[in-house]
């Protein structure tokens, strides 16, 4: 359980790292809807899907 916990923490850490870096570096010159706007939508959908997987595993 502890190994899984750290795995998920690492995964969310990577997501957050991308959240703070990509829009301010690679995408800072892309003034199109497929730039930071699309990235942050995909970031959120990935986070939501990950949260969904974790919730799904709970036993009632």
């Amino acid at each position, binding site marked *: 359980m502890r190994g899984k916990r750290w795995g998920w923490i690492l995964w*969310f850490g990577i997501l957050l790292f991308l959240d*703070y870096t990509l829009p301010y570096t690679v995408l800072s*010159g892309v*003034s*199109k809807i497929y730039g930071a706007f699309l990235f942050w*939508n995909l*970031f959120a959908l990935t986070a939501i899907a990950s949260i969904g997987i974790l919730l799904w*595993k*709970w036993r009632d």
Partner: protein
Amino acid sequence: MNSSYILLVVAIYVALGTWTAYMSRRGMGAGVTEYFLANRAVGGFVAALTYSATTYSAFMMVGLAGFTYKGGVGALGFELTYLSGLVLAVFFGPRFWLAGKRYGYVSPAELLGDRYQSQWVAAVTTLVCLIFLIPYAAVQLMGIGYLLGGLSGGALPFWVGLILATVLAIVWAWIAGLRSVAWTDSLQALIMLVTSILVLLFVIYRYFGGFGGLFVTLETDYPQWLTVPGPGFFSLKAYIGLTLPWFFFCISNPQVSQRLFIPKSLGAMRRMLGGFVIFGFIYTLVSVLWGFSTKVLSPGLARADLATPTLLSQPIIPAILALIVMVGILGAAVSTIDSILLTLSSMFARDLYKGLRPRVSEEMELRLGKWVIPAISLVAMIFGWLKLGLISALSVAASAGLLMTVPAIFGAFFWKRGTAAGAIWSMLLGGTVTGFLYFSGIRPLGHWPAVWGGLICLVAFIVISLMTTPPLEKAEEFLGYLAKGLKEKNAL
């Protein structure tokens, strides 16, 4: 817009909400747990809606739309970073829920006080929440004042909205405690979501011919608004300063974390959190697209937080649609305020008053909690009357202050070595530094108050805990019970 139309629609909303609040009293029992937590028996659907309505306030369609208007796409990243922070509720939710059922906790402050074996921890947590949540409630009241004033073209003065929202929040919290708050929240959450989507779709298709039209206009006329730092508001330091407290919002804000005690089962909590993230994603997109639309349709406004009321009062928006959005925003504000009032009143009665006078009866505790509701409301209303600064910035300052409770919360669940002294001093030092930096306007090295306050708070918690004696027996028993429960529930 004619103010009599506004008052008519508000009257319908008030009648519907008050009827819902009264209906929620059916089958209501007695006692503190029943009043403040609806007896820990709330179903997943209602829990998801009350969680959503409590979290999302007038800030979204007023403040976040204003952020988008002023700073562009960074507002989207900011709010979605907050939403991703809900992963914390996946970790902390089952822990709060299990501990609440076993030890009978009513508030997050009570949990901290018991875990660290110090009533002073609960009292200081309550004080920090009172100090920082009253401005947060005040900005909601201000939002309604601005909204009604802007929509009526000034015919309804600022104070009309302020007083209306205050009275509604008091009455709907008073009638049946969390039951009436949760049921009126549910009604308001549905109103918020449906009205905002409907009006956004109308604006997008009526004036841009569809989403593609809006995006093309933005790319052509406002390309900077699609990048960060873009127009300048969302520098990286500002983005970190804004997102840091909001990422931890779901555990730092007691009106939200208290909701981790209320689901009737872990399955209901799953539906609560799952429903909330879907609601939050849609509502965030709607608010940001509303801000972009406002930028294109009504550029050149002097104040970003007036963008929404100003757009709604323009002739290009049909009166009926403006009224619908107004009700949605009013609902968003009131549902947040009454939840804050109820949570703060439970903390005041249980963690301050009862903490100092342990022999007080449950009946007296409940009576006091009920009377604290209007008292806190009046303080928030006066604060709102002072109209301090940009509405969004005030709201964020409140979250920055509440961030100072986070190390103590983490320590309670994940660090046996954490102590009461560490928890108390981390909150006091972090809260003082955050408050000082915020009110003085000083930003060392360009970083926002939340960054410095959070850093000092974290260091203080660790260092002071290591220098003092932890309640190891309680920590072993508390964490041992949770470990067993989490394993049974297959939660991380």
